[in-house]
């Protein structure tokens, strides 16, 4: 007997996309993003399971533990939408298992990848772009706004791209979507971002050194302070370093400068 395939309409997927921005609204220490995931999946589950009993089971299975990177989660959400669609058509045990496995197996690796690429590269890179423009236009307060605006636009364009195309690709390709993530062009672009960021940071540091007044004392202290901070940067938390630098700077200015 041929099974009639139920297809999720694009309007429902659009609702899922908008709801994906609320994935972490109910983040908790027990199930982490579980309730957020259910919130995101609600339009799909309501469409696929009109019967109260089936809907209840679908809701409850998405309240199991789930945690991953919030932007890359869209790939998993898309793949789970496709898996739910298939299960609603076939009612097969294998398809049901696939839904649970997609979330369980992929959550961890995607989280680690996202942390490295987004929190570790994209976010600081956007900050470097912003800082670059702020320092470049530091004499003109109006032009300084180009820094935060550029940082926000750059970051948001990548963020929204990942959310939307992640959902679309995940839905179309299901678990095959992850083949390209770890090795594809997206990964390369993050490597280029890191290289560009290092170049910009070096430029800003040198510019700061050249702008350190005409005082020989200050010009000598500049690299010495950098080396001392570099020695302690991995050993001390940022907050401790901040207060140490503040006190050292104050004392140096008071007694040596």
């Amino acid at each position, binding site marked *: 007997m041929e099974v009639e395939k139920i297809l999720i309409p694009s309007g429902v997927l659009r609702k899922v996309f908008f709801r994906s921005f609320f994935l972490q609204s109910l983040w908790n220490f027990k199930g982490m993003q579980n309730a957020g995931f259910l919130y995101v999946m609600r339009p799909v589950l309501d469409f696929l399971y009109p019967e109260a009993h089936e809907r*209840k089971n679908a809701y409850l299975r998405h309240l199991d533990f789930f945690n991953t990177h919030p932007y890359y989660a869209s790939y998993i959400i898309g793949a789970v939408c496709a898996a739910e669609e298939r299960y609603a058509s076939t009612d097969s045990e294998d398809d049901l298992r696939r839904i649970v496995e997609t979330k369980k197996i992929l959550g961890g690796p995607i989280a680690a990848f996202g942390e490295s690429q987004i929190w570790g590269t994209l976010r600081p890179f956007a900050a470097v772009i*912003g800082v670059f423009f702020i320092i470049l236009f530091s004499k003109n307060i109006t032009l300084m706004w180009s820094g935060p605006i550029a940082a926000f636009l750059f970051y948001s364009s990548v963020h929204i791209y990942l959310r939307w195309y992640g959902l679309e690709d995940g839905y179309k390709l299901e678990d095959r979507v992850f083949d390209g993530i770890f090795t594809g062009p997206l990964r390369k672009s993050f490597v280029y971002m890191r290289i560009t960021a290092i170049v910009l940071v070096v430029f800003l540091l040198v510019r700061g050194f050249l702008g350190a007044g005409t005082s020989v004392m200050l010009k000598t202290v500049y690299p010495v302070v950098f080396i001392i901070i570099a020695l302690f940067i991995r050993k001390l938390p940022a907050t401790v370093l901040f207060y140490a630098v503040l006190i050292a700077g104050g004392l140096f*200015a008071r007694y040596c400068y």
Partner: protein
Amino acid sequence: MTEILCLAVIFGILSCDTVLVGQFMYSRPLIAGPITGLCLGNPYAGFIAGLCVELIWVRMIPIGDSTPPDSTLTAVLAAAAAATAVSRLGIDNFAAVIPALAVSVPCGMVYKLAEIKLRATNTAIVDSIKVKIIRGDFTSVDRAVFYAIIRKFVFGALFFLASFMLVTSLPEGYWRVMDLTRGVEVTMRFIYILCFAQLFEMFLKWK
């Protein structure tokens, strides 16, 4: 007073962006700092405070409960306190931002700890959602999300108001502490070096 109430509302919105809604990152200090400064008529103080907080804590990543001090509160509070000190006491922007940062960091840490406590209550909310779904109430998760956002907004706004009043009630002598060192520029330059050392570490460490 109206400006401060507006700022509390703005901070409430910004605080939701950090984890709860969207994570568009307009809550990043680099953006939140200048916005705060602009609200108080001194965007320059906001730029300095935002830039320092953004870069000094750039290696902090928002995973679970691992992010004290809260960089958004630290930047917004430092920018607001510095702008207020500049307009009230007529001191230099840099001289106002340094003590403002020094006092905002502990507030950011307390806010982060309080926020983690608040987040811990979500477990009970999620458990109640489960019970409601079993009873057939399928909209309970939507209501819970709405409640969580409103709660975070109100909590953020009130915390900002309380910490702002605390910080601005500090005696004038505190805000003039940089006069004692006679070297605002040097201290700021030290902080500048720390900022870029953190950035270097960030890009060299992450693979």
